[in-house]
């Protein structure tokens, strides 16, 4: 019998209208840079140039922070919570109405499969605005402490792996609590943030409440260093997070940092195996493994390791790698050439250190940045691929014999963002969750997110939480005012 060949099912690009070049969104309008330069944003799947993007100068950052300060002092900081909530509800609804546009643009700019941008990133981004809209007029009752009030102007720097979702994680709680925002999207994925600027205009948000400026590391540093920033929120690599922490040490600036991870996904011999295999796949191959909480270390009980490995490899052979805009694509493009090089380098190190490499052998497109779903077996804690964050579709498989050994290995990393436990034994789930030093512990699932659930790390995975009431508390000061 012939194989079931799925015909191409591309989502139409017609819904998005990408301009040839973009300015900076400051004080409610797009403006030209003062002394900044320009760079190009490309589609990682085809290397096609999508648009020319402005690299903001220090003067631009200064203008943006000044606009945010004026908006904070003039209108947003004084507005009632109920009125702020109305704006947030409006933004949430516009995001839903323009969901397809955001999803297509995100997949074009980032390389992630349309089924993920359509079913995960954009709906979750809207959900974050809805959730925080509801809190805006109830902060006194959120258990944050007495008299919760905003910090003022918040600087936010977000990564390229979930551009619109990370924007929502940052902007929604900041606005709900009455802060104003200067946000910088990652240099490889600025387009959905710039489209969000249009949403801000459409929602008639007062000028300066949300400012979006583009650029690379230097622009981010300028935001971090700006004296009139009251609080910083950063998601990205641990290296940059440490630089930010050093930069603001000794200043009055507050910060939350959501950094890297090397999560253990722990499978016991009484696990629901078929679903565990799905959880392993979702844990590390979701979003090409460009996920800070990815389950990049599989810890599998030794007595079922061979069975799990067989099932996992069979499953990986059905993964469809290719055009991010095809509705049947499971794994899209690696976000950038630099990231691809890092993945190539770390996997080469894995081989050199003696781990056994396997990939699903799928065909890859000739243009763009691609990497096959890859599994390393025979990995031990000492290997670089078990210690360093690869941030790509690469799984390292380790084994354990007892629950204590699983906990010890899971915790034996400088990171502590997330972990997964697969067992049908409820008491073991509770015991393990208590022992694991990770901000999120999933039981019999992985990579599930919800605006009501706080997310954040232990150790070098950062500090502060995003989402839920815990996330709100990072954006307010409490107690008596001076």
């Amino acid at each position: 019998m012939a194989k079931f060949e799925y015909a191409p099912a591309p989502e139409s690009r017609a819904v998005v209208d990408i301009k040839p070049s973009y300015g900076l969104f400051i004080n409610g309008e797009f403006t030209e840079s003062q002394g900044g330069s320009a760079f190009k944003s490309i589609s990682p799947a085809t290397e096609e140039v999508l648009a020319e993007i402005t690299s903001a100068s220090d003067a631009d950052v200064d203008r943006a922070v000044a606009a945010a300060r004026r908006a904070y002092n003039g209108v947003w900081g004084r507005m009632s919570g109920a009125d702020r909530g109305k704006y947030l509800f409006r933004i949430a609804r516009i995001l839903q109405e323009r969901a397809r546009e955001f999803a297509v643009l995100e997949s074009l700019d980032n390389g992630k499969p349309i089924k993920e941008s359509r079913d995960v990133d954009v709906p979750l981004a809207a959900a974050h605005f809805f959730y925080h809209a509801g809190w805006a007029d109830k902060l006194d009752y959120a258990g944050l402490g007495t008299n919760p009030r905003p910090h003022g102007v918040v600087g936010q720097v977000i990564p390229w792996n979930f551009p619109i979702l990370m924007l929502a994680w940052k902007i929604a709680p900041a606005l709900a609590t009455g802060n104003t925002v200067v946000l910088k999207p990652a240099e490889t994925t600025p387009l959905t943030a710039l489209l969000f600027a249009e949403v801000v205009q459409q929602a008639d948000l007062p000028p300066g409440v949300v400012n979006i400026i583009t650029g690379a590391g230097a622009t981010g540093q300028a935001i971090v260093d700006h004296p009139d920033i009251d609080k910083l929120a950063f998601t990205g690599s641990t290296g940059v997070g440490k630089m930010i922490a050093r930069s603001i040490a000794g200043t009055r600036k507050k910060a939350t940092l959501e950094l890297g991870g090397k999560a253990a996904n722990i499978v016991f011999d009484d696990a629901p195996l078929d679903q565990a295999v799905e959880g392993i796949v979702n844990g590390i191959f979701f979003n090409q493994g460009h996920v800070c909480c990815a389950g990049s270390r599989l810890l599998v009980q030794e007595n079922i390791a061979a069975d799990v490995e067989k099932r996992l490899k069979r499953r990986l052979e059905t993964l469809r790698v290719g055009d991010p805009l095809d509705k049947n694509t499971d794994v899209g493009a690696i976000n950038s050439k630099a990231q691809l090089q890092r993945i190539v380098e770390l996997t080469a190190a894995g081989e050199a250190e003696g781990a056994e490499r396997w990939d699903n052998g799928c065909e890859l497109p000739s243009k763009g940045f691609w990497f096959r779903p890859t599994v390393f077996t025979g990995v031990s804690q000492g290997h670089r691929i078990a210690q360093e964050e690869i941030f790509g579709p690469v799984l390292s498989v380790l084994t354990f014999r007892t629950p204590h050994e699983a906990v010890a290995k899971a915790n034996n990393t400088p990171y502590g963002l997330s972990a997964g436990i697969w067992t049908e034994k409820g008491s073991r789930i509770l015991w393990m969750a208590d022992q694991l030093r990770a901000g999120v512990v999933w039981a019999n699932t992985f990579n599930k997110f919800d605006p009501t659930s706080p997310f954040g790390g232990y150790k070098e995975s950062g500090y502060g939480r995003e989402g839920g009431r815990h996330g709100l508390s990072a954006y307010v000061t409490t107690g008596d005012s001076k």
Partner: protein
Amino acid sequence: MSTPTAAVPSVDATARARDLLGVSRLSNAALTSWLHALPGVDQVGCEARAAGLGTRSIKTTAKAWGIDLAISMIDLTTLEGADTAGKVRGLCAKAIHPDPTLPDTPRPAAVCVYGDMVATAKDALGQSGVKVASVATAFPSGRALMPVKLADTRDAVSAGADEIDMVIDRGAFLSGDYLTVFREIAEVAEACVRKDGSRARLKVIMETGELVTYDNVRRAAWLSMLAGGDFIKTSTGKVSPAATLPVTLVMLEAVRDWRDLTGEMVGVKPAGGIRTSKDALKFLVTVSEIAGDDWLDPHWFRFGASSLLNDLILQRQRMAIGAYSGADYVTDDSPSLY
């Protein structure tokens, strides 16, 4: 299909079961420890996986291919107290000429009727290649004594049935009496042997709507395969819910793993509640991605359905002429008037 009905040799299910379980005597205790050692099914994860497969976008050439394949996998079914010979002949005529306007439309795999209609169906279908499947064993409840169930089966086989759709004793299964279920299936399988030594293929209906949990579905599937079923089938169509995608997914995992264990393939038949082409394509996607393309064959996968055929024909006409024709352009002998 070209596959002959008698291709499956009779196996001594009890001897094989003892061998697989590593016991000298088959007992409830042995069956329980074997079935209960199967990995559990996490409900949330299982349903999420099925929903994910349901988002596959099957278009153009893939859709055309899938529609034809789905038509060729249908067991076109009438199982009503009000059935008559005339109605069965009408169904058979439909099976032979599913769409008179497009003669290249494939024929369904079989016509599925009650035992007393087998001879009529056999006569009406002649040399068309469409098989006759008969329900048996006190369908749909299965509440009869074993001699009655066996006589029911033998009657249908001797009247010419190519395939037998039996029901398991859900009461015995749910009360943990796996040995009774095993023996019933094995004995019915014996009753499927014809005088010339060939066999009717046996489909084992587990009535998953009454088993409720996916753990039960998985255990019932393994028990049915162990006892010698050629097919595992979800439902009678008389109990709701019937053939859901997650239940079928669990069964497809079971036949996949059974082949890993024994080297043998067992068929899967979701029946009841699959009415649209879109649904049928979701099932085919699930077959392909869970069990593998070897099962994308009417010999190994069937849809138990009645109204599904006309929706597939409607979609097929749309792809042929580029516009929806409408229900009056698809022949229908049994509109749902009552």
